[in-house]
């Protein structure tokens, strides 16, 4: 483990439901997890494990019943996210290319096909738009909108929407959606790209952008995308 666990890990531990996962995960649980009131270990037979795995994925505990995420804990909304993006993140967690001990445990316990299945399941979900607890003020929204649609020449940053799609709705096989994503999660992601703790962006495409943004830019652009509600017309 190269980096400190992200903040949401503290919340995740107390919600961890180990019972739903195959045996292997329970056996390799992190020391902190062992301290929580763990549920019964998974049954021994593969059939029972598979049934248990299919019945109640632990994802809900952090990512919500509808995949809407948990903003305060920096857990991202994943409902309707691009399936190949989700699959890639699971692969990267498992391989250690994206550093996160909680997600690594979950991902390693899943086969390639299971990861694809979970990715597809969440890609097919819908969750209601959740407004920010503290919406950004107008001038920050305007700055965020500018970065999203236009970019900033002085900082040599191109428009986010160039890759992330109109209104940040995402572009399959290219970039995940940003619209309606929690500002907290987006900010932690940009900061992780910027400081190098997250390095699974192909071509360093995200690092190249993040390293040119300051804290005010990050607050503005993440607050803006979190405010984009595509559920109404």
């Amino acid at each position, binding site marked *: 483990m190269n980096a400190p666990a992200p903040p949401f890990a503290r919340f995740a531990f107390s919600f961890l439901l180990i019972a739903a996962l195959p045996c292997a995960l329970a056996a390799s649980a992190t020391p902190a997890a062992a301290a929580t009131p763990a549920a019964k270990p998974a049954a021994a037979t593969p059939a029972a494990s598979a049934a248990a795995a299919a019945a109640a994925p632990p994802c809900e505990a952090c990512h919500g019943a509808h995949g809407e995420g948990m903003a305060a804990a920096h857990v991202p909304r994943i409902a309707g*996210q691009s399936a190949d993006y989700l699959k890639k993140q699971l692969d990267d967690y498992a391989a250690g290319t994206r550093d996160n001990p909680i997600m690594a445990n979950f991902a390693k316990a899943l086969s390639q096909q299971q990861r694809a299945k979970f990715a597809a399941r969440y890609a097919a979900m819908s969750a209601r738009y959740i407004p920010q607890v503290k919406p950004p003020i107008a001038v920050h929204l305007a700055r965020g909108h500018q970065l999203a649609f236009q970019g900033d020449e002085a900082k040599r940053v191109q428009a986010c929407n*160039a890759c992330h*799609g*109109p*209104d940040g709705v995402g572009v*399959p096989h290219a970039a995940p959606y940003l619209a309606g994503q929690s500002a907290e999660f987006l900010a932690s992601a940009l900061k992780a790209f910027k400081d190098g703790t997250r390095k699974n962006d192909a071509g360093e495409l995200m690092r190249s952008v993040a390293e040119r943004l300051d804290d005010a830019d990050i607050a503005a652009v993440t607050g803006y995308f979190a405010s984009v509600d*595509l*559920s109404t017309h």
Partner: protein
Amino acid sequence: MDKVTRRSFVTTVGAATVAPAAALLPLTAAAAVSPAKTANIAEPPKTTYLYFNTAEVLFIEAACERLIPADESGPGALGAGVPNYLDKQLGGAWGAGERLYRSGPWQPGTPSQGYQLPFTPAELFHASLRAINRDLDAHGTPFHGMSPEAQDAYLKSLESGAHDLDGVPSGVFFDMLLKMSIEGFFSDPVYGGNRNMVAWRMIGFPGAYADYFEAIDRHGVKFEREPMSLAEDGHGHIHVRQDIPANL
């Protein structure tokens, strides 16, 4: 292969067809709305013509549909709104001579020297269509009344340069009509053609959003993604520019 639509992540309320954004008020409601993206559109869009008069419209709609016909692979020129594209280009700055060097003196020149007529595209089309309609009216059936075979034969005769259209060699007119029809078929739908990106869908061209950094590694694998217009918003509504043309 990721076939899930991009908008499934947010619960939608309401019917499949939606009203266009208020910022761009269309001249004709039907033309501006982009209904749910379907591969085959049975009803050609209603177009408000600003450049072509009625007689010209009858020729243009029929002729374009012969140039690019509807078939099993999808809509043709009519379903894609190619006549609308032509109307807005010819009625706008392009038709008026944008990007055309218009000073004389004029000589016909050699084929290597390209277009040498004084006509702007708008003038050329009006002159040619006037001559065509007059010629066909005088000799019997108007173009839109002919059988498809007869229409093709007439178009071929235009293509070969067999007619002088009030000073416009018919081959010059035909080449411009064909070139602009192809543009209207394959350009971004913001310009009023390629309605709902039917032409892009037909060939598998993904459109204006184009980050292929990871996909380029998947040699020989079909790229499965809905095409995307430069003018669509996060709901997939394409904001067609009724006031066209391509501004430079």
